[in-house]
């Protein structure tokens, strides 16, 4: 395994696939987009950001209207419009369309067109592809593999779907292969009323018949039987996808805020990635409060402001700052505000120390006062990421 990369800039120059992962709500999609924007701008080449999150906001920010399964190029003219130089390379964007991707997959792996049709028409198929949550992870990595093999892009940056467990994504191909290899699938696809169905399956079918009803059971077994016809191609493919996820050309960027729960998940992810042979590229800590909140002198000044509010207010009022009582209230409020935020900043600093990741893989992003909703915002975020773990500026201003 390669060593940890000293900066995101070098990481993105050396890798072909970057996967952002982490708990829900930490900014995976935005981080992925910002990294792709920076790579296209600074390194050149063809860079694709593939998002599994159907967030229209990203499409809006990239100025590409609606995003779909097909990659679209982000117009280069948007960069001058955001006051930046045109990118050296090309920036492309695509959004995972679960249903369309499943349909493609079935068309590819079914033994013949008739079987493909029967699978697509099965009552359960739509439910499985549309509603079935776990299928999302597999189809996301499958699509990633597809785009990678396509060879059109020098770099693909992809975010991961919100899931119960971020590892679901990494293990999806193995689970899919296991599924086809499962003893249960063989039992289930044996014609359930025939005598071939062995001892193991009899109690199941007896009970299942009562619980699910024979029609539903029939639908299920038929679906699985059809699905099983795709096994050889599917398993081979899942194995290849799994390999790609572990190759050195693929790296993972764990994203987190400094809240306890996402950070706990980030710590777990970092450990799992390392333990299971995936390449941990970087940890991005998002929405970090400004470092000045930890300033000891500032804490002293804030305490003084609260304690001496009346005396200070009298002086300031005399100098024309306003009415003394009001000035005193404002000073108290300003001082207390600092002390309140300092408590949170200290909590965050402590959480960060607990993460226990060496600082050379950590990039921090300050708490932006406004939301990122355009290319300019993505570029500002990207520039922060490029800068790595430098002290956050006093406050993100613009």
């Amino acid at each position: 395994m390669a060593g940890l990369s000293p900066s995101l800039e070098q990481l993105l120059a050396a890798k072909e696939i970057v996967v952002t992962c982490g708990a829900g709500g930490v900014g995976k999609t935005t981080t992925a987009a910002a990294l792709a924007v920076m790579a296209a701008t600074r390194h050149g080449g063809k860079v694709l950001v593939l998002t599994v999150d159907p967030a229209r906001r990203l499409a809006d920010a990239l100025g590409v209207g609606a995003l779909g399964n097909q990659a679209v190029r982000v117009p280069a003219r948007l960069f001058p419009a955001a006051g930046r130089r045109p990118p050296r390379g090309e920036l492309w964007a695509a959004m995972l369309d679960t249903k369309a991707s499943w349909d493609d997959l079935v068309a590819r792996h079914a033994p013949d067109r008739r079987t493909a049709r029967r699978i697509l028409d099965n009552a359960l198929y739509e439910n499985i592809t549309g509603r079935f949550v776990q299928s999302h992870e597999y189809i996301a990595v499958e699509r990633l593999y597809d785009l990678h093999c396509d060879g059109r892009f020098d770099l693909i940056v992809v975010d991961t779907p919100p899931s119960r467990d971020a590892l679901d994504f990494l293990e999806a191909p193995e689970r899919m292969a296991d599924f086809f290899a499962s003893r249960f699938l063989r039992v289930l696809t044996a014609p359930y009323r025939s005598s071939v169905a062995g001892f193991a399956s009899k109690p199941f079918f007896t009970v299942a018949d009562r619980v699910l009803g024979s029609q539903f059971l029939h639908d299920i077994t038929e679906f699985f039987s059809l699905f099983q016809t795709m096994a050889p191609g599917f398993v081979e493919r899942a194995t290849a996808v799994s390999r790609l996820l572990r190759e050195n050309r693929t790296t993972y960027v764990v994203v987190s805020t400094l809240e306890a729960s996402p950070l706990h998940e980030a710590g777990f992810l970092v450990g799992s990635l390392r333990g299971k042979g995936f390449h941990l590229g970087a940890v991005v800590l998002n929405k970090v409060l400004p470092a000045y909140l930890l300033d000891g002198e500032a804490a002293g000044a804030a305490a003084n402001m609260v304690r001496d509010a009346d005396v200070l207010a009298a002086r300031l009022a005399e100098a024309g700052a306003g009415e003394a009582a009001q000035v005193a209230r404002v000073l108290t409020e300003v001082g207390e505000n600092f002390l309140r935020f300092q408590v949170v900043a200290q909590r965050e600093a402590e959480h960060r120390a607990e993460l226990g990741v060496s600082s050379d893989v950590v990039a921090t992003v300050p708490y932006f006062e406004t939301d990122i909703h355009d290319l300019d915002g993505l570029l500002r975020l990207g520039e922060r990421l490029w800068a790595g773990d430098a002290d956050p500026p006093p406050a993100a201003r613009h």
Partner: protein
Amino acid sequence: MEDLLDRKLLFVTGKGGVGKTTVAASLALLAAERGQRTLLCEVDAKGDLSAVLETGPTSFKEREVQPGLFAMAMDTEASLKEYLALNLKLPVAARLGPLAKMFEFVATAAPGVREILTVGKLAYEVRRGRWDLVVADAPATGHVVGQLAAPQAINDLVRVGLIRQQTGWMLDILRDPARTGMVIVATPEEMPVRETVDLAARLRGETIVDLAAIVVNRVLPELFGRGEEAVFEALDRSPHVATLADATGPGAGPVLEAARLAVTLRRTRAAHVETLRQGVDPTVPVLYAPYLFARAHGLRSTRQVAEALAAELGY
């Protein structure tokens, strides 16, 4: 306001990271403190519940963690075993082992089976009448609609059988706004607000569950009262800045900076709250819970959120 806690089953959802588990625990804690026998169920067993209540790990069998408040963790395999034992009157529990494994396999692939085992267990607890209130710390916004739609989907797919008989009463409980409601938790930030507005629309279109309330969590306090902001702006300029630094020390700069940060954050967040209010049905109650400047999150902060929600609900 119609009494939120008088319903029998509340699903609490929200975008990841908004404090969904804390709000679910607060509502349950509040109900228990008001004398309601309350069951709190963690659906995606991640262990967050034990953190916000500072209790040990939860399991499928509920456990009293605070007076009148029982906590459990959803486990679809256990739910299935319970269901089969109750409905099939299978004499030997041992036979359930391999059988449950087989069902577990079907559940990973067959649509809605896992979901219905989750929603079914919750509805079953309501139907049993052991609780005054069941609160579910439900999956995040992206997954909750699929979960709630499962009984209907199964109802459409399955024409006969025990499951079919079961979905009927489940649907009755879920569609009754007097008994069942959804609570969406959001923070006053762009994405959580957007997801809340989208989910509110999807709930109406794709599920039968009534939107009971929206909780806006982590609302920052208003720093300045009327006229005070102008005073602050004056203080933040020459010559007063120098006077302040002279009197309080060299750290005065960051203190003023932090006040500007608080004012800006409060302002952008107020705009998001406005977007939220514009985007959802005005009859849906919106409750506010404050941002907690706490050293750590745990039972104490959960209680603080519960107190804030109690005040919002007029208790």
